[in-house]
């Protein structure tokens, strides 16, 4: 595929999303305050960047495991626990860089422990990761007095990685780690084989334990970066009852969309583009006062369904389109 066509197809989704939300909000009176159209403005840029960067990091962590045929439930819990530990240490030391470093190390350790339980326990991945999710969630009640971390985001110095322009650093690092893993490591390049046919992959010599452990380390680093952004933007409270799986399900949308969009480029760009488009979508809904409550959930559900249906049926749509154009040509 030519480069210009690739770029066009890659940017098509967010551009279409932007144009669609622009048109919809422009027609909605709720989007005008004192005669001023509020959709377009620096607030849009800031919202999209801040939300998309967080989504990109979490989505990359999810996709890294999914690409190797494993659905890891525990990424959300690992992120929350990492955020609490790194945030509290950062608060005590006053250093955002130390927070970042501790978060990355913590993420790696937690994901490595999950991998160890999976490999040594020889449990199905979903069961192993659900167990680790329960464990990590329970630890959020035990570390640092069980109070979570409430005031990290309030500190301008400490929370630089959650706001402009510092947020670009962990995001770029996460994307760089993913690209390095996918293109420069044997594990990353051969991971797709395991996802498509695990037995065949093992039979041709892929060492699955090495794949699991290396993937977990890289995934853990990305989880740590996601946790840094998360604690820099939010109050982080202890979680229980697999509530962190909700985090996973909310960030899985850019993953699935990114897989499709990334066909024209690569998965990192696909996921990033999908995250940006969804952030534009959410901002538009916020402007129309549909950003919270019941309607936002329903609209999100319908949108997700339509997108997946479109991507799954693309070949059929193309065939139908070709048949239609042929009929017109004959006529």
């Amino acid at each position: 595929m030519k480069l210009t066509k690739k770029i066009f197809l890659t940017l098509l989704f967010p551009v279409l999303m932007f144009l669609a939300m622009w048109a919809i909000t422009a027609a909605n009176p709720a989007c005008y305050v004192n005669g001023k159209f509020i959709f377009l403005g620096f607030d849009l840029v800031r919202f999209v960047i801040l939300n998309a960067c967080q989504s990109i990091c979490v989505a990359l962590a999810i996709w890294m495991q999914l690409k190797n045929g494993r659905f890891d439930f525990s990424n959300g819990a690992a992120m929350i626990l990492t955020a609490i530990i790194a945030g509290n240490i950062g608060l005590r030391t006053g250093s955002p860089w130390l927070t970042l470093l501790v978060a990355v190390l913590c993420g790696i350790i937690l994901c490595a422990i999950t991998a160890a339980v999976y490999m040594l326990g020889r449990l199905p991945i979903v069961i192993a990761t659900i167990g680790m999710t329960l464990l990590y969630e329970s630890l959020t009640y035990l570390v640092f007095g069980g109070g979570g971390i409430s005031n990290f985001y309030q500190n301008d110095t400490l929370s630089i990685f959650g706001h402009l322009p510092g947020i670009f650093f962990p995001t770029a690092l996460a994307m760089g780690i993913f690209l390095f893993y996918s293109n420069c490591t044997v594990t990353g390049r051969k991971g797709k084989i395991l996802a498509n046919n695990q037995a065949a992959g093992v039979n041709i010599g892929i060492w699955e334990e090495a794949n699991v452990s290396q993937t977990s380390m890289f995934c853990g680093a990305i989880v740590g970066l996601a946790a840094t952004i998360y604690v820099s933007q939010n109050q982080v409270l202890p979680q229980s009852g697999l509530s962190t799986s909700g985090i996973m399900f909310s960030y899985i949308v850019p993953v699935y969309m990114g897989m499709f969009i990334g066909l024209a480029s690569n998965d990192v760009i696909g996921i990033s583009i999908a995250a940006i488009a969804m952030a534009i979508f959410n901002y538009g809904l916020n402007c129309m006062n549909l950003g919270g409550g019941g309607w936002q959930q329903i609209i999100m559900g319908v949108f997700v369904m339509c997108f997946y249906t479109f991507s799954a049926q693309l070949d059929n749509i193309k065939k139908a389109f070709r048949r239609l154009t042929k009929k017109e040509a004959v006529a």
Partner: protein
Amino acid sequence: MKSTKKVLALVLTLALVFALAAPTAMAKARTTKIGVGLYQDSGAAVTAVKSYLGSLEDALNVKFTYTVLSNTDEAQNITKVQELIAAGCDGIICTMDMGTEAILQECADAGVYLAGYLCDYDTSFRNNYDNVFKNEFFLGTVADGGCADEARRGYDFFDSVIEYNERTPDAPIRHVAMTVFPAFAFPYQQSFAAQFVEKVEEYNAANPDKAIEVDPLSDETDILMFRPMDSTYFSKHPGIDAIVSICSGSFVYPTMVSAGVSNTMKLFAAGYNDGDEAVFGSKGAYQMEIVSPVEAITYPLVLLLNKINGVEFPDQPAEAERRGSSVLLINSDEDLAKFQNSIYLSFKPEDAFLSPEDVVALTAYNNPDATYAGLVDVLAHMTIDDIK
């Protein structure tokens, strides 16, 4: 053979010792067990409540067991209460009005009493009064800041804004917007907003040169659906100097920080979150916070203990009541300094409004002169100025 005899002798000796000790143990008064269903399972408020109640255990011969309730799932609350009852609790303090009728049925089946804390039981009061407030197993509740239509929270916010303006005549607040939780969950927050607007209008009429503009409460923009405020709020309320957050500040402040306005815009909020002291008053955006005194739990506790011990106040009302306690209104750096000496932040029982001896004296079964009026009066003296 010799060693066997020695072992047997040892066993017999131990058995005799236990046999002697058992009557002694049985003769000791049975410890009352009180279950506490909290509204959250972590944070400064929870630690402070546990610290305060822990200090009362010896003096009252009570053991406290804790669980956490849900503000959205009734079945979970019923399960938690059942577990507390099964754990041997004689009385239960609840902080939620979810599934109350079914919970009271459980209590009735087990002969366990229930009282409320930090909750005005408004849904039950309006829709199910006979089955809840007239139920012999429901003893009453205390809510922070007054119950329902008696509450004047809106006036407190107004007073705080004026106090701020008087303190900073060079940069007064002239334009505010508000946020509230949805009416179906917190029906009185919109009336608090109306109280605030009413007072502002009175003030503006008397002081036209110092008029304060209040953006009307918008159903679409200003109601937070239990998630952080989104950044479009600032576009929809351009030019505001402050936000009056009748719902919790923790839903508003993170967005202020993300939007980069936390250094220029002020926040008057209900609630208090760990670490807010670092950004309060002269140090940051927060200019007012409202804290519920943990010692208000004394009201349901005393009522439960009296009932469990088979004693009532001579002036006990015929039906369960809901009472309001005072609140800790933090309006300035001086107030914050006082607040830091309270049990809420220090977690030291000696910093509480009430000592164990004070609480013992409030109970009818320990003090025949104790009255219901006296218990209610204590609730009114838990303000920032009452901190030692």
